[in-house]
């Protein structure tokens, strides 16, 4: 087949997280992938022998396919950090539309907390980051991803209370969700008084660190119609992706990120829908500043309006634009490359199967980020083909 990769010709027919997320010292990284993969295939009601495309970010895609007994004719190991999975859905859609694959399995799994079966992490002192960022102590996301934020806040007139409001808003989604890591009610003062990590960030403004995974099965809308999961298919309407600088100090603007702006614009153009059509947002929130950048850069609010939008409650349960409805990386789970979990929650909402279900979700917008301000990936998903 050769058709458009967008507009609902391609569908996510299987989606599942690992059976458990949280602290899983009894599972190796690769078997978080295989657990999620087997569950996603069962969810789709598709035989693994039909899978001819395999994609993942992080582990060797050869091992992933081999562990599952797959000998694929199409593979993709694109690694652009936590938004790799948005990009992989986009790449799989292109491959299926072009006839290069029929059924693609996309997996994620990270033993981010327990570090079981994980290769050692030794940053190369010859890398650009190893020479120009790590020596200053920017060795972890909390100490590098946060460096531009005071400039952003000054430019917008935002305060630390505005960062805390993001955490409080998202916690409201996590409180009823038994799979969420942080479920205690909290207020702005509580967030500000949490242990300091990297000023202006306290612990609660930083994501949880967990183990877990997820997987997606992607195929043509035509094939989706004949599967047991037909009524639960989620269609890819539009997408975008892009990269910025490999080190955060070199981002083009400290208060705005090009891949958010450009990737989201392409997603809307390819989907042929407008912002007002979107019912639900998943904004990759490794840290509390990201939903603020994303709300503005993807055009859901104007420049400088994001903090008030969140403070006014529009993204909370009952709000007009529910965001990060399982609690997000800040409260639900964050294994390292969170993007897969953002897509999983969008799929659940579109299927009407979320723990805290938003009524009448038809269109979900998903925005990922990767390698700090290194990359972005955008998806517009729907429970209707067009």
């Amino acid at each position: 087949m050769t058709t458009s990769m967008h507009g609902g010709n391609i569908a996510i027919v299987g989606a599942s997280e690992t059976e458990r997320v949280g602290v899983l010292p009894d599972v190796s990284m690769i078997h978080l992938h295989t657990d999620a993969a087997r569950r996603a295939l069962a969810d789709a009601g598709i035989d693994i022998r039909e899978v001819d495309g395999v994609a993942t970010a992080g582990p060797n895609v050869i091992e992933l396919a081999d562990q599952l007994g797959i000998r694929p004719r199409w593979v993709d190991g694109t690694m652009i950090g936590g938004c790799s999975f948005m990009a992989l859905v986009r790449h799989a859609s292109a491959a299926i539309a072009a006839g290069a694959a029929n059924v693609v399995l996309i997996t994620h799994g990270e033993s981010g907390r327990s570090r079981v079966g994980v290769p050692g992490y030794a940053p190369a002192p010859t890398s650009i980051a190893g020479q120009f960022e790590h020596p200053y102590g920017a060795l972890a996301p909390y100490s590098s991803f946060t460096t531009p934020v005071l400039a952003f806040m000054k430019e917008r007139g935002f305060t630390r209370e505005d960062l805390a409001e993001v955490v409080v808003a998202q916690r409201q989604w996590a409180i009823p969700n038994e799979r969420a890591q942080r479920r205690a009610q909290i207020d702005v003062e509580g967030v500000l008084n949490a242990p300091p990590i990297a000023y202006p960030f306290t612990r609660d403004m930083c994501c949880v660190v967990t183990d877990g995974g997820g997987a997606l099965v992607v195929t043509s809308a035509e094939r989706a119609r004949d599967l047991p999961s037909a009524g639960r298919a989620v269609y890819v309407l539009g997408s975008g992706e892009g990269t910025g600088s490999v080190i955060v100090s070199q981002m083009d603007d400290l208060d705005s990120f090009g891949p958010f702006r450009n990737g989201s614009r392409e997603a809307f153009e390819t989907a042929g829908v407008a912002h007002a059509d979107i019912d639900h947002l998943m904004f990759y929130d490794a840290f509390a500043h990201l939903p603020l950048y994303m709300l503005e850069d993807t055009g859901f609010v104007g420049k400088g309006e994001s903090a008030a939008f969140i403070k006014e409650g529009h993204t909370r349960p009952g709000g007009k634009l529910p965001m990060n409805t399982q609690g997000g990386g800040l409260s639900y789970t964050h294994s390292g490359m969170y993007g897969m979990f953002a897509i999983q929650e969008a799929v659940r909402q579109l299927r009407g199967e979320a723990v805290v279900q938003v009524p009448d979700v038809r269109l979900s917008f998903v925005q990922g980020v990767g390698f700090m301000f290194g990359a972005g990936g955008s998806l517009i998903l729907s429970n209707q083909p067009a």
Partner: protein
Amino acid sequence: MTDGPVPRPTPETLPFWEGTAAGELRIQRCTPCDEFYFYPRPFCPKCLSSDVAWEKVSGNATLASYNINYRPGPAFSSQDPLVIALVELDEGPRMMTNIVGVPAEPEALPLGMRLTVGFQPRGDQFLPVFSPAEGA
């Protein structure tokens, strides 16, 4: 503080690190564009010309943004807070650095503060770090 991760130069970045060892901040400038750029590479990222030259810059900069890292981690023997800053050189490029010579407290770190470069030994290299300019 002299311990912590040690940068290892590559052939393309070596002149930068030779500069810091000599007490100079050296940045590349593209001749056709007449603009400085950072990080080091053997050509201009705007026009791809290899007609580029290393130049000693003023070492004057402005504080653009920062965080105070309260958890430097096992790479550092001292767990005193580190001010990880983004500074804008007067010549144009932005770079990451540490702010030294002031308390690691927001009150001592107003954005827009004028800064001047200094050099701290780190392993067999010297790191460019910044402190408030005299009179700032």
